[in-house]
């Protein structure tokens, strides 16, 4: 399918969101992704997956992409793409790492960096629906400037609690020292295993694996912990 870039918006110093129009899009559920295929003038092709921050029946979608300095595709999407440009996409893809408003029960979201993107779709899907499922988000970012979707997450909709964890620099006076998310963070800020929440963990592969292992040690049922690895170490 051919997507046309409608607008671009900086999210952080290294990331931006892209709003794209996709005629013929059949809608998507929160958590799904698209594969974006770029073709160079010499015919060389590169395909990468990008989660959708949007969901529902509409044909206007939102992606948000973080730039990896040595990356093949992400610098192009973050620095070069302009409104009016076209992208070749395939989707919606993935039926497992998804949340739908018809699902009852508490939902614990845990994001590292750009891993917030599919979780943002879940947050927005809940807000746009009649769902009363309580949501909590634990969002790990390098520093206070590294936050995607800041306005929406700093004033969350009722029923959503947001906890920030900074790995390199904190706002002044912040109680928690910088560092990776630990089991103590998870037990202090997440729904306990006894509540049997649905848990969605997304971000760099190392982050996802460390968090998922810590959740299981805290007693969460591995079957209730869904993971999506974005790659990297």
């Amino acid at each position, binding site marked *: 399918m051919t997507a046309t870039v409608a607008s671009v918006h900086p999210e952080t110093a290294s990331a931006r969101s892209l709003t794209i129009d996709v005629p013929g899009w059949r809608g998507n559920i929160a958590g799904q*992704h698209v594969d974006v295929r770029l073709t160079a003038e010499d015919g060389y092709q590169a*395909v990468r*997956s990008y989660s959708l921050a949007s969901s529902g029946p509409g044909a206007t979608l939102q992606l948000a992409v973080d730039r990896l300095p040595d990356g093949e595709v992400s610098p192009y999407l973050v620095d070069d793409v302009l409104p009016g440009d076209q992208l070749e996409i395939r989707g919606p*893809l993935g039926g*497992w790492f998804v949340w739908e408003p018809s699902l009852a029960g508490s939902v614990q979201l845990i994001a590292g960096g750009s891993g917030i993107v599919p979780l943002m779709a879940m947050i927005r899907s809940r807000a746009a629906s009649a769902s009363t499922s309580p949501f909590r988000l634990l969002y790990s970012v390098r520093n206070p400037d590294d936050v995607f979707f800041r306005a929406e997450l700093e004033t969350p909709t009722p029923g959503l609690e947001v906890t920030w964890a900074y790995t390199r620099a904190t706002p002044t006076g912040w109680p928690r020292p910088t560092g990776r998310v630990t089991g103590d963070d998870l037990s202090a800020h997440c729904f306990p295993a006894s509540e049997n929440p649905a848990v969605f963990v997304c971000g760099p592969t190392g982050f996802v694996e460390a968090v998922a292992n810590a959740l299981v040690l805290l007693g969460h049922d591995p079957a209730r912990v869904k993971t999506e*690895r974005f790659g990297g170490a």
Partner: protein
Amino acid sequence: MAGHVDGNALAGPLSELFAFDPTTASARCASCGDTAVLARAMVYEKPHSFIVRCSACDAVLMVVLQKGDATEIDLGGLAWLRTLG
């Protein structure tokens, strides 16, 4: 080994071959017998291929090869693949 992702990333490449979304199907590892949805497998991307490994024992479950516009899957490491419901 270089970084890896997981079975969620197979949804696009496998959409060429399957009418359903195989990442939500249960896959049984022929080596250790572990059964898990394909989305939980470990996926190592190589030029023109994806090596899919069991998250329990690391054995190769399948290899997805992209040959131009054609997609080929070597399913040798799978005992079976079953849709849910």
